[in-house]
């Protein structure tokens, strides 16, 4: 892959703090125009990595290039939008003034900024016929509205690269949907989006590629489909009809089938359905037969790739979560 095709090229960065190493020789590449997930438990080094990416803190070793240029180059960060994990705005300032200030800091001309602010406020429903929240102080806005203003601030200068640190934390479903739609639209317009999360479902839904890090080190990275198929395993998603299908499983014949180690290596009861990992060499059709013979009334029987969640649990494990290091991810 050519350098210019990469939005981000991180090469062997390390960040040491007094008592621990936050990030250790981390390398990763993010292609232009992709949605990239940075996954890891709390305290894995996600936020530290993102801060180094934005030149907020300096790596002790290694190099970072954004669009093929060193990240310290002046003016480069004007092309990057950033939504930090800990959010906040000037409380006593009017919404429009905050947004204009943050846009101007990214090199947007005031007149341009005003036009874009109006567009975005309308789009996120912050200006309506009855009320223009743009003239209110941040303090007077509800939490949901403040989050919207914060998104707008991140995207106002039309950045080519958007970095979102735990963007879904604390969002209500409506704002989460708005954020997801925005990310999809950015991708459609050829922008690069990188976001960190420890919620694997979000990453699985939205990301083209992911990197899983734990204890400051890379565990694996690649295209989501590659990551999921790389284990060489197939899983079965099984849902039974009836309310208490899953509750009876330990006593009835279905449970007996699932505990057959020739067929099933491991199963995970998700309440609504089972995620079943087939034993090596097992035939899924045989499993289906056995289940029907055992009297199961099947609602769903689907061959699936292992979920990111399962891979994550398997590869990172409980030991990946270091105690006492939360907050500074």
């Amino acid at each position, binding site marked *: 892959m050519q350098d210019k095709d990469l939005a981000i090229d991180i090469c062997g960065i390390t960040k040491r703090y007094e008592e621990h190493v936050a990030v250790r020789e981390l390398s990763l590449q993010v292609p232009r125009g992709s949605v990239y997930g940075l996954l890891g438990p709390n305290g894995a080094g996600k936020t530290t990595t993102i801060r180094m990416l934005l030149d907020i803190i300096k790596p002790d070793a290694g190099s970072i290039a954004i669009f093929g240029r060193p990240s310290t180059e002046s003016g480069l960060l004007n092309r990057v939008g950033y939504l930090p994990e800990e959010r906040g705005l000037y409380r*006593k300032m009017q919404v429009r*003034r905050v947004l204009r200030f943050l846009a101007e800091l990214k090199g947007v001309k005031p007149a341009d900024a005003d036009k874009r602010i109006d567009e975005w406020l309308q789009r996120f429903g912050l200006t309506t016929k009855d009320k223009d929240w743009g003239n209110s102080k941040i303090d007077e806005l509800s939490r949901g509205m403040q989050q919207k203003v914060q998104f707008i601030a991140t995207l106002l200068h039309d950045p080519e690269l958007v970095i979102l640190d735990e963007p879904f934390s604390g969002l209500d479903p409506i704002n989460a949907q708005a954020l997801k739609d925005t990310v999809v639209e950015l991708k459609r317009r050829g922008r690069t989006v990188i976001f960190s999360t420890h919620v694997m479902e979000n990453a699985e839904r939205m990301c083209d590629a992911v990197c899983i890090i734990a204890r400051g080190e890379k565990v694996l990275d690649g295209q989501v489909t590659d990551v999921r198929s790389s284990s060489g395993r197939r899983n079965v998603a099984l849902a039974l009809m009836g309310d208490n299908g899953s509750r009876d499983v330990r006593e009835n014949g279905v449970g007996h089938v699932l505990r057959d180690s020739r067929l099933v290596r491991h199963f995970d009861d998700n309440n609504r359905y089972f995620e079943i990992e087939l034993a090596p060499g097992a035939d899924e059709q045989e499993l289906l037969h056995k289940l029907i013979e055992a009297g199961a009334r099947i609602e769903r029987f689907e061959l699936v790739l292992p979920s990111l969640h399962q891979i994550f649990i398997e590869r990172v494990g409980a030991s990946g979560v270091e105690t006492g290091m939360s907050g500074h991810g």
Partner: protein
Amino acid sequence: MDKVWVVAKREYLERVRSRWFVVMTLLVPVLITATFLVPAWVAAKAASGSAARNIVILDATSTGLGQRVADILVRDSSAAAASRRAAAAPEPGPQVRVVSQAQLPAAEDSATRQVMKPNSIVGYLVLDDSTLSARRIRYAGRNASSIVDMDRVRSAVRQAFTSVMLQREGVKPETISLISSLSLNMSQTRIDERGKGGNAQAAIFLGIGIGVLLLMSIVFHGQNVLRGVLEEKSTRVAEVVISSVKPEMLLAGKVAGAGAVGLTQQVLWIAISAYLLTNFAPIVLRAAGAPVGGGGGSSAALGISFGGLTIGLFVAVILYFLLGFVFYASLLAAAGSMVNSEQDAQQAAMPVMYLLIGSWLFVNSVIVNPTGTTAKVLSWLPFSSPIIMPMRMGLSPVPWLSVAGSLAVCALGCVLAVWLAARIYRVGMLMYGKKPSLAEVAKWVRYA
């Protein structure tokens, strides 16, 4: 640099728009005007002596003492009366009632009833045999607790008494009237290396005024910077801002913006105070009955002269304010970036404030001896020179070479303070959790 400008612009506009700024900008000139005018008004009111004139003198001495006292009381306030060019007729002086010793109790009774009526005489003075023999006088009236009026009555009686005694000793009446109308007018002139010049009291006034103004501005606007930094940190807006602008630039913009606010406020303070003083002083003083001359008479009446305020001193005050502000505001910003709460911030700011308040403790000895060693040393140290040097310049002339040198040292101190502050700020702004120890802060400075 564009971004420094954007940060400074926000800082400036948000502060100038705040209600506090408007209130302080209007309130302080009113207070300054009041501190000038109230004492002047009291003095003018006393000088006009209208209350002491409007009395009855019951004279039972049969020596004409009462008439003499009345004459003196009238003459005392004639200067004030003369100034009221509009006043048609001179006000009547005290009424003198010559009575015999036996009639005195009845006369006192009627005078008491008269005083009790509103819009009448304010009191009465009794001169009788005991006045001549034991030097005792009695006064009763509504203004009996007025120190100024009582002083006036007492000194009038003393003067009258003196002239009566001189007359008895056979001194010529012309000589007596000359002695009793003798008045002293003392002018105080300062002498310095360049010779005579200026009014000594005005210089002290100017020096202290400049010192207080600089101290207040630096403390007030420096604290504003500290609070602003703390707000950015505690609302977590800092991280968004720092992802767009380097922390050093953010610090520079904040200090520049807040400094510009301080400068704006000072200029407005001076302009509004000057306006109020020139426009209201004559009105207030005329109302109090003080002599008021032409247009320029007001400052003379107030006993102040701004002759000591030269362009050079004005420029020096501005320069020292800017340097002193940059020095203290950047250190206070660093203090604000280290902590997470208002209480911790005040504690972190303490060492910085000690430098400032510590310098202020020496102000007295600088006023007493503006050319002494203490004053000289303090006007070279970068943390005290922004306050002490302009004060010294107001009190007594300082060679321009010393001023330039002290400004240079102060600028150097600023560079050092900004460098130190930027390093602390860079790390501190993203550091949440417990308050750092001094050793930790030292480490930030080394590794930032």
